[in-house]
């Protein structure tokens, strides 16, 4: 793991996580749905959170860690307040989305996979959001920006910086 910094999980947060785990107790193959819901609630899945799930779902921590790191949707690092996802699916790629990604990286000063120091932005490259008609596409917290050209990137970022 990259950073050894301990993540604090408050009592209240622990209670919420336990209530999610409880909901799935007895369901076959519950681990992935539990991880989805816990990440939705906590924002990411640090080791400390995985330990809580392991203790209460009765799944070895090693297996949970294996699953979390296998699937790209799960993350052990927090994302930015505004998570930028640039689509690098084929339809977007042939329409130049690699250049859009470069422009986001240049504008925000971080590389894909990274988070800005103030925690405001993170950039990820993703594979096809299914909006191929609007290629090239980027998504920020679920909001889709389509038919992008490099010049759009700066003003889109600025819109979020003001908030």
């Amino acid at each position, binding site marked *: 793991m990259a950073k050894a910094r301990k993540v604090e999980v408050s009592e209240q947060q622990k209670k919420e996580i336990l209530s999610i785990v409880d909901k799935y107790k007895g369901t076959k193959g519950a681990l992935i749905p539990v991880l989805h819901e816990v990440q939705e609630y906590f924002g990411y899945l640090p080791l400390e959170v995985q330990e809580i799930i392991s203790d209460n779902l009765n799944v070895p921590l090693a297996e949970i860690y294996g699953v979390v790191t296998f699937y790209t949707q799960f993350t052990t690092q927090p994302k930015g307040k505004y998570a930028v996802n640039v689509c690098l699916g084929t*339809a977007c790629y042939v329409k130049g989305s690699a250049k859009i990604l*470069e422009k986001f990286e240049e504008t925000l000063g971080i590389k894909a996979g990274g988070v800005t120091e103030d925690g405001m932005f993170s950039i990820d490259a*993703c594979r*096809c959001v299914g909006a191929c*008609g*609007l290629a090239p596409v980027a998504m920020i917290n679920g909001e889709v920006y389509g038919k992008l050209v490099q010049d759009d990137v700066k003003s889109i970022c600025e819109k979020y910086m003001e908030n």
Partner: protein
Amino acid sequence: MQIARSHVLICGGTGCLSNNSMKLKEHLENKLKELDLEKEVQIIMTGCFGLCAEGPIIVVYPEGAMYSQVSIKELDTIAEEHLLKGRIVEKLLLANRTQAYDEEGHQVENTDFFKMQKRVALRNCGRINPENIDEYIAYDGYQALGKVLTEMTPQQVIDEITASGLRGRGGAGFPTGTKWKFAAASEGDVKYVACNADEGDPGAFMDRSVLEGDPHSVLEAMAIAGYATGAHQGFIYVRAEYPTAVKRLNIAIDQAREYGLLGKDIFGTGFDFDIELRLGAGAFVCGEETALMRSIEGHRGEPRPRPPFPAVKGIFDKPSMLNNVETYANICPIILNGAEWFASMGTEKSKGTKVFAVGGKINNTGLVEIEMGTPLREVIYNIGGGVPEGKKFKAAQTGGPSGGCIPASLIDTPMTYDDLNEIGSMMGSGGLIVMDEDNCMVDIAKFYLGFIVDESCGKCPPCRIGTKRMLELLEKITDGRGEEGDVERLEKLAKNIKASALCGLGQTAPNPVLSTIRHFRDEYDAHVRDKKCPAAVCKNLVRIVIDKDKCRSCGLCAKNCPVSCIRGERKVPYEIDYTKCIKCGACIERCPFNAISRES
């Protein structure tokens, strides 16, 4: 039930939702109140119409007038003119915005885009409100399930599907009837049927559209599959990246349970069947059947060797059968209209229709459903409207990361499983990406291999290490460090990976490379021997040049250059300092005189 004199269908597919169609719906609701039309005009949010490039799309019935790229202001005009006064707003019609317009062209069915299509799997997409089970039932929904449960034995169902000649629409094209027969013959007290909705091919979105636009057609077909194979539980494994599909599936499952169409004792026949959703978590390999089943069980989605085949030992070690979304979407029409009807479409070995997600360098990006055997040319030019900006069609890529390219010289290839295999491509799930003269085929091969390297689960060395080595070779070639023999090395590696990888995805991973070598060997040679990229894409092999005759010395390029490598003065053409240039191309985009370009 309230009867409206006019129905306004607003597209609620992902493409149009991203284009603000939800806001259009809200706006129209308010507008109708203002015009006092709320009782006369009914708004229905439907699934995808397929013509995503022209979104947001609105269709007004009974006229069938299809409006495209509708803005809020234009919506007001449509409300005031068409809905209030009954006058079609001709200038906003799709037929008027695209080039091919004729007198009757305003009707949805008569537009160039739709008239060549045959919609079976997509029959209800863009026609019904997917969140209302009654609308599905009104279009013969759940009739096939009723027929199967009350009039047919499981064996008769399997015979019907077999006779139809339906083959799996997810990739390999395995005969669906045979698959059902194996699952039915398997011994076991508990069996499962599953639906593969983990559409992983980047650039394909037909499964998403079916789930979003017609979720019940999948539920109904799964219940039929359950009856035919002796299963009482179904799983739909759907990508978490498809939130709208997940939401509508959940609504559909709840409604079907409420109506007694899922659950215990369906239609009073004693047949029990229920369906559970399982979300994927972003792993391409989970489209492989054994990996998908591992993932449903809550583990890492790694494939395992077969046999035992899933029909014998699948989900939770029970006999299981998996079909993809589009395959299921074909089941109910086959049951209702008969195998003969279905088999009358398509070719001898590829029956029925196929949905293609047409994207990339093409005018009408979207979903098209055509009879099998339709030549690629028709898809590209007649339905797709050709390549934008008058550029030359170079190739179409089908089958995604497992498929290959169809070069311009083979554009008359009929789109069937066997014809595509023969030229080194494949049907795959139906992604069809069009490329023009500005796309470098070596770069495209590198793109797909990069995808595979990212997504390889790492279980077997040929895929984990072999594809990485192939990618390194391609990077070497596109960087301008290629050597004589590199292409042969690629071919040798590819053959070994194909022969030794564990799962279907690994075995097909080298295909994009092999197919581009086969059809575009000259481009590979240009990179390796001449250190040139003919399409001027590969950064290390191109130079950015300023055309001295066209340059008007305005200085915009220099102002926008991120590394300040362009210099010049008034009345003298600007010049680039190549020791600093990072080839980002910012200057090309800014030049108002098109004086700057990439040169190979």
